[in-house]
């Protein structure tokens, strides 16, 4: 398996946008909902595993490079800001640092870290066209502006390069000089960009009107088909999502941290909940691995 082949459309990406979007809503909601060491650990492990498969190892290392310091920052910040809990470990500047706050910090740092890692997979799977497809159902006009803005960004970036180059040729390089000069040059480049872009925008608007924009109800182009495979997967995700909500409402997904940590005895229902949560977490990896095996067999 080469790293590159995994980055193309595969696994969860091949499902309908509603399926992949619902998946990430379910998994990220679960990650942020359960302030519990077991759930946080499961989510974090699954997030890292999925990100390795979906984004490749290289991008995972980049995420970890930014996520691990964040993890330590949050884990350490909590006992410093929060002085609740019974077990005082030591005093720092006359404030008690407690074991409970420390554990709480580690758990919530794990949750945040897991959410960030899940989002990196989300960014690969739910591409902006899929997001706009979903969002456009509810807010078509807003979705249209967003897609217009998105298409403008690369064009503006290209234009910035052109403007910056010509500015440099007349001795106004934004990459050299003091910070003040650089900011001034940067602002000038943006100003030139605005004049160019606004003129361009009005022409676009008139051209759209000439072609009948606003005359009829807008239809949107999409290449997504909702098939049987999608329906099955969506039902599975919704069932697992419902399990999450049940776990939260019944109080099995959270635990008491303050004043002292309290672990309930684990019963059969807890095991079922853990099992369904793990199933949800490993879903993208299972889909991906199943596909790879099938591909190898067919080869």
């Amino acid at each position: 398996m080469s790293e590159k082949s995994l980055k193309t459309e595969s696994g969860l990406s091949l499902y309908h946008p509603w399926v992949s979007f619902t998946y990430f809503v379910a998994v990220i909601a679960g990650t942020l909902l359960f302030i519990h060491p077991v759930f946080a650990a499961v989510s974090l492990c699954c997030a890292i595993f999925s990100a390795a498969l979906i984004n490749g190892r290289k991008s995972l290392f980049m995420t970890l490079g930014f996520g691990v310091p964040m993890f330590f920052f949050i884990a350490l910040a909590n006992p410093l800001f929060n002085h609740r809990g019974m077990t005082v470990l030591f005093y720092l500047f006359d404030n008690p640092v407690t074991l409970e706050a420390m554990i709480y910090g580690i758990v919530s740092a794990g949750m945040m870290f897991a959410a960030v890692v899940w989002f990196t997979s989300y960014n690969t799977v739910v591409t902006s066209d899929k997001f706009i497809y979903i969002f456009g159902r509810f807010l078509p006009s807003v979705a249209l502006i967003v897609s217009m803005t998105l298409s403008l960004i690369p064009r503006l970036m290209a234009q910035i390069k052109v403007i910056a180059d010509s500015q440099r040729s007349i001795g106004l390089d934004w990459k050299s000089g003091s910070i003040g000069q650089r900011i001034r040059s940067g602002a000038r480049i943006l100003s030139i960009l605005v004049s160019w872009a606004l003129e361009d925008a009005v022409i676009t608007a008139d051209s759209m009107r000439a072609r009948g924009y606003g005359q009829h109800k807008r239809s949107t182009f999409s290449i997504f088909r909702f098939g049987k495979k999608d329906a099955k997967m969506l039902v599975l995700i919704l069932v697992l999502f419902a399990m999450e909500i049940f776990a939260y409402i019944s109080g099995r997904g959270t635990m008491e941290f303050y004043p002292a940590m309290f672990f309930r005895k684990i019963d059969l229902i807890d095991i079922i909940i853990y099992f369904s949560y793990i199933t949800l977490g490993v879903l993208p990896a299972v889909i991906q691995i199943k596909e790879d095996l099938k591909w190898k067999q067919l080869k």
Partner: protein
Amino acid sequence: MATGAKSYGLISMVMVILAMVPFLMLYEMKKPQAREWIPLAVMAAIAAVGRAAFAFVPHFKPTSAIIVITAMVFGPEAGFLTGAIAALASNLFFGQGPWTPWQMFAWGLIGFLAGLLSKAGLLKKKWQLIVFGICCGYIYGWILNIWSGAGFVYGLSWESYISLCITSLLPDGIHSAATVIFLLLLSDSWGAKLRRVKDKFGILAS
């Protein structure tokens, strides 16, 4: 009901998303013309690009200033839309995270306030612009701190929230300084450019 530690992270995230719905619905119900919204898309895109272009100085971004200038010309609703879309689009481009709805709301609110103040004639003088520019950095920072606080500090007490705001004083201050500098550098010339487009093509003349 649930016992134990409550997840304020998810609750607050749902609430901030719901808070944006009325603004977006308002715009949706207006059935806007292409001429009305395309300049907003352009300004949102420039705000997003500006965020990337000035990444060489941490927390120093022209985005807020660009949103304020747009809102001053096109009004509060257009200001909210430009701010929210600038945040959403730049994150769609550079990567989403749990902070996306917060940034959308924060920048949307800055645009909305700028539009309201400008309508009331309170952003005409230089000193008013400077005061509002300073406020922008803190409005943005303090809204994003709600997320940081709700995300990891149990109970989201006032005490922990205020200590978070104290730790973020410097980055928010840099953001404020950037907003003031860009407002002073750009507001006259960009305001004129935008007003010209507005007058010449009759944009949002309702």
